[in-house]
């Protein structure tokens, strides 16, 4: 939403990350050569339809991707405040355990299934604290758990509840509270509100933005709902076919999308206001990872496709035709032959 916290200091740098499903001949590439930087304190939105690789990217960079996912290349550099940068992909199991949640936490799509059904909310809030701060006393952990629930607007007498006793919205709040338990630098949100109703969605997002301003963490926000991202994030990256096709500050992307896919996505949401006009969405179907089109993966659906699109892969670069403006208003990149790099 507001861009007042947009620092330029990187906190998480993804460099040329590649993620496959499966090994050997049967494998498909779900994320291809993705580089993305999350800055301290910002909300970076990641949009795309199913199969675009946005969730795969999020799980891949935390190494939480379930089998048969494998990471086949790249680096994920985490910049500790006041410490040396670490490559998350090179961490040992123990190192990774220590790193997780303390530095980056995740809120998953299905709050319904993210909480262990057989343990109370308190026990699940407390076990993560115990795992990372073993010296903390039990009463201190309990106090912290109470504090966390209050933070997300849930009455502390809910501590003894089991997940099934909470509504969907409350569960998602509990997850957000849990994500903040160790005051991480980065919170990754994978469609955190998709399963919720719009009213609840807005309340939770509001709360999140508010917490972000108070606590200063960065958010990687993943959703298919681009209209939501425009409203709630500082910068937006659009993924298609496992690659990032455009990245720009939210307002800029909304006003002047460069990639035809971004343009199509923005036009896929009928507006609530203004003129009622015929919209078309994007023709065709999202690509099949097993048989990706050559060249630009979007070209079979692209209304503006021309010759190089079918054969040559456009790389993400600052568009030559927008550079002048972008020097003043912040960076943007796009992977499209209509806007080749400088």
């Amino acid at each position, binding site marked *: 939403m507001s861009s007042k916290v947009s620092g330029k200091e990187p906190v998480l740098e993804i460099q040329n990350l590649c993620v496959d499903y499966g090994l050997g001949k049967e494998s498909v590439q779900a994320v291809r050569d993705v580089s993305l930087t999350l800055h301290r304190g910002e909300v970076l939105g990641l949009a795309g339809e199913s199969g675009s690789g946005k969730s795969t990217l999020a799980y891949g960079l935390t190494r939480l991707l379930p089998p048969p996912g494998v990471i086949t290349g790249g680096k994920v550099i985490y910049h500790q405040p006041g410490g040396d940068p670490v490559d998350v992909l090179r961490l040992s199991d123990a190192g990774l355990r220590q790193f997780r949640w303390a530095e980056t936490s995740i809120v998953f799509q299905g709050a319904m299934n993210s909480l262990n059904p057989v343990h109370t909310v308190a026990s699940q809030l407390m076990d993560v604290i115990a795992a990372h701060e073993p010296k903390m006393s039990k009463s201190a952990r309990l106090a912290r758990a109470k504090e966390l629930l209050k933070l997300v607007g849930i009455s502390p007498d809910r501590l003894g509840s089991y997940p099934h006793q909470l509504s969907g919205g409350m569960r998602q709040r509990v997850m957000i509270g849990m994500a903040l338990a160790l005051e991480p630098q980065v919170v990754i949100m994978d469609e955190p509100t998709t399963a919720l109703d*719009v009213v609840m969605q807005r*309340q939770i997002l509001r709360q999140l933005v508010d917490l972000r301003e108070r606590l200063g963490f960065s958010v990687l926000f993943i959703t298919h709902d681009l209209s939501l991202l425009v409203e709630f994030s500082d910068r937006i990256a659009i993924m298609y076919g496992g690659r990032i096709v455009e990245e720009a500050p939210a307002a800029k992307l909304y006003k002047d999308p460069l990639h035809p896919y971004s343009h199509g996505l923005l036009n896929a949401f009928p507006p609530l206001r203004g003129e009622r006009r015929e919209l078309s969405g994007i023709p065709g179907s999202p690509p099949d990872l097993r048989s990706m089109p050559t060249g630009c993966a979007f070209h079979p659906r692209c209304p503006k496709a021309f010759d190089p699109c079918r054969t040559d892969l456009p790389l993400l670069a600052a568009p030559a035709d927008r550079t002048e403006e972008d020097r003043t208003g912040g960076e943007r990149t796009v992977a499209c032959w209509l806007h080749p790099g400088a």
Partner: protein
Amino acid sequence: MTLTHTSDQPPAPPDNDTVLEADGLTKHFAVRRVGRQAMTRAPRVVHAVDDVTLTLRRGRVTALVGESGSGKSTVARLLAQLYPRTGGDIRLHGTSVTVRGGRRFRAYNRKVQMIFQDPFASLNPVHTIRYHLSRALRIHGHGGNGAAELQQALEELLERVQLTPATRYLDKFPHELSGGQRQRVAIARALAADPEALLADEPVSMLDVSIRLGVLNLLRDLKERLHLAILYITHDIASARYFADDTLVMYAGRMVEGGDSETVTQNPAHPYTQLLISSAPDPDRIVGEGTPDDTVDASGGEPPSLIDPPAGCRFNPRCPHAMDICRTELPPRLPVDGNPDHWASCWLFDAEHGPAKAESAAKAETPAETPSEVSEYSNFPGSDPPDPHETRSGSESDQGSAEGGAR
């Protein structure tokens, strides 16, 4: 098959003729009582749908908007006669119809067909597209005589939903198609009956964002060519504005507002509709610095339990304008701003009880787009403890117990 014979039919009635009507439609699901409860407690029911009245007209799309659990899908299934109703009436061309399976059911659903939300679940994974469509054609007597005619009918059906060439799709299994293609097959299956009314239960919400509009546009195109009456059920009020001629808003099993889509979305009258619209994602909205974001809302915007719904207006525990009467008396349909086609079930629009009428009417004229308007809704849904179910156990766990009883 039948695609051409629409023109042979007796003079087609003009558009806007009433096809299907629901009058006071009510559905209560029994909650299974277990053990001791059977003796001690009164029979408990989930008030899924209460007193829903709506009209589907030829060549018009009517949207039914509501959040999950508001009963909107139940309305569709009641209209499709898949569930028996608890009360109220369903009239097809003015004739009351109650069917429960058998021949009369087929006769009814030849006129009224349904499209389901999830195209990944609504097609049987073990059957080909050909099987699905042939069955639908045969059941409704549109299969023609012999294989050649059937084949022709199948191809025409698929062409209608823009799956061409048809032969490429006929012998595929559902899992070999994408979501959008499956939903088109599901639409083709509904069209096989040559219906007059189509009940579309969130037909695009499971599809990828980029292809949703394609399917909606297809439905609109079909509506125009075949003069279908369409009920479009959705939780996305923006898509209702885009696609539907009329929009009805449901909250907790009751209808709260209705009217022309443009009017309802631009001048929402009922506080719930206003909340819904102010909550919908809207990239045009600029959230200003002055937004009181720090008013953390304690309970979240959760709808009430339908087992024991609040008395009076069901929205009263969350309503910022709630008056005493809202907690006791059910508001009737009241016209909004003297517009006979725009109504709201809200006491604010009652001449006698609406002290806030002038204020809210003024508000309704200026749609919720200024930051101050938005901020008003950020803190109202129950920062006070109005919702008894919220504090006890979430409404979902109540439903859980209902299901748990049924096991």
